[in-house]
């Protein structure tokens, strides 16, 4: 290593060090601390703290409420990601195909994406109102109790999440479509490909990478989603919308079981990291990331 290279390294390290220190303090340390917490029995108000070992995890393994939360998280994630993906691609293609209303459409999509999730939750709570909600009015006056009926609550929550996050997929896909040069389409036309043929053999393959990335981001977000169900239903009715994050939160700050809640938090953490790792491997194999 030459003196110049060494100087560059030193300067680089110097510039990165403050940010790194803060990240270690605010993310690194807490993520080790949460592992430690999850091995303890802690009730903060009474100042109780004793070592529980893997006790919380052993309890969770046979806790029906935990497994119900796992199922709800899975259902929520799969349904909302699939819907967002399907609708998002459809919207992106529609935006590409029809210039009219494109600006307005993009603005509305961006707004829905940029609003606080709590605002979206309040908006949907009002739309779902049993008697005065627009949803029931549109459905011809059915007085369905969307958020109060255990069978309807999860679909209702999923729908509002899809509304809020589909724009992300649509905008990503649309931006990718914008970057496809016109010659590609002209060539397809010269080869005699019809509209559907072009879509199948030209457009969709070009969207492949961005779709995979969107699925990765959206899956991670869906697994750790909290705001939307917590504000809309608080996990109810009858725990029908209680995902792992909501169960963790309720354990932590309502039942004040810091150790137990941290154990659930650790499981969400492990789940998210597994998803991220699996997708990264996939993306690498596909050559999307290096």
């Amino acid at each position, binding site marked *: 290593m030459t003196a110049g290279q060494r100087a560059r*390294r030193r*300067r*680089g390290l110097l*510039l*990165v060090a403050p*940010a*790194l220190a*803060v*990240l270690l303090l*605010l*993310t690194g*340390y*807490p*993520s080790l*601390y*949460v592992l430690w917490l999850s091995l303890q029995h802690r009730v*903060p108000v009474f100042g109780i703290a004793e070592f529980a070992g893997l006790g919380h995890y052993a309890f969770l393994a046979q806790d029906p409420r935990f497994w119900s939360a796992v199922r709800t998280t899975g259902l929520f994630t799969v349904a909302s990601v699939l819907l967002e993906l399907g609708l998002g691609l459809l919207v992106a*293609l*529609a935006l590409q195909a*029809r210039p009219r*209303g494109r600006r*307005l*459409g*993009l*603005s*509305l999509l961006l*707004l829905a994406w*940029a*609003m*606080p*999730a*709590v*605002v979206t939750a*309040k*908006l*949907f709570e*009002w739309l779902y109102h049993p*008697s*005065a909600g627009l949803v029931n*009015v549109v459905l011809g006056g059915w007085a369905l109790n969307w958020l109060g009926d255990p069978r309807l609550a999860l679909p209702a929550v999923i729908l509002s999440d899809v509304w809020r996050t589909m724009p992300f997929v649509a905008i990503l896909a649309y*931006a990718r479509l914008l970057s496809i040069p016109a010659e590609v389409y002209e060539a397809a036309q010269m080869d005699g490909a019809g509209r559907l043929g072009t879509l199948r053999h030209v457009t969709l393959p070009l969207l492949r*990478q*961005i779709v995979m990335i969107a699925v990765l981001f959206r899956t*991670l977000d869906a*697994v750790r989603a909290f*705001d939307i169900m*917590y504000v809309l239903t608080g996990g109810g009715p009858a725990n029908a919308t209680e995902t*792992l*994050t909501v169960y963790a*939160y309720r354990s*932590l*700050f309502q039942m004040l079981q*810091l150790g137990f*809640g941290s154990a659930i*938090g650790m499981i*969400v*953490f492990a789940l*998210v990291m597994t998803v*991220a790792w699996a997708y990264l491997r996939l993306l690498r194999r596909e050559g*999307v990331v290096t």
Partner: protein
Amino acid sequence: MKRLVHALPDALVLLGLAAYAVPFFWQLLTSFKPEAELLRLPPLLPTRLTLDHYRVVLEQSLIPRALANSFGIASLTTLLALALGVPAAYGIARLAVPGKNLLLLAIVGSTAFPQIATVSPLYLILRSLGLRDTWMALVLAHTSFALPLTIWLLAGFIREIPHALEESAAVDGASTTQTLGRIVLPLLAPGLASTALLTFLFSWNEFLFAYTFTATEASRTVPVALALFPGVYEVPWGDIAAASMLASLPPILIVLVLQRHLVRGLLAGAVRE
């Protein structure tokens, strides 16, 4: 059949526009509807419009205080994230940092961290520092996820600046600090502005940390105030709609300013190495 294929995109566009325009419009309308007409449908449209809900929200609720808290916390978070993020992004994009790939992976990885896993340790840490229910608690908590995002976005913007400019400055004898200040920062200004607005937006919208680390009006942010909106006997839907509109103002302004950049920025942010 052919006509159907042609009409389909139009129908989709219309349906899509309606699906997004109607809820916004409905919330806006609700915020101006007289109390007596809120829970009666039909008629859908109110007989008159009123500012009562805005008056209640601005004069009798904690929303104005929450708006001030949110504004202060999001601004300070943005400043802190940029102050730490600009040098770090420059170091990663341009200089040789030992273990750079690992570092980048850690930064990307930490953007995927679920907040629910760090909320309990952060709660204990902030409490033991005596920071509970202060702006500082949220500024620190928000920086934990805003900083990786800032570094990630900025490193990409810096890579787009032609490197030759900096090299010639170095040949002319400029120090790293001088190069950063005189060459990189001015060229980075648009990217810096976009990054700042996005960081602000994420801090403004954040709920879980804000809900957990605040206890009173001293630090409650808008999303928290909205989630805790008091309704003793009945839910004040009109007031909530008015408060929602006020809470959405900064995001709306940010989207209007960044509209063009956001579409490209989201794409770049997503596929960037």
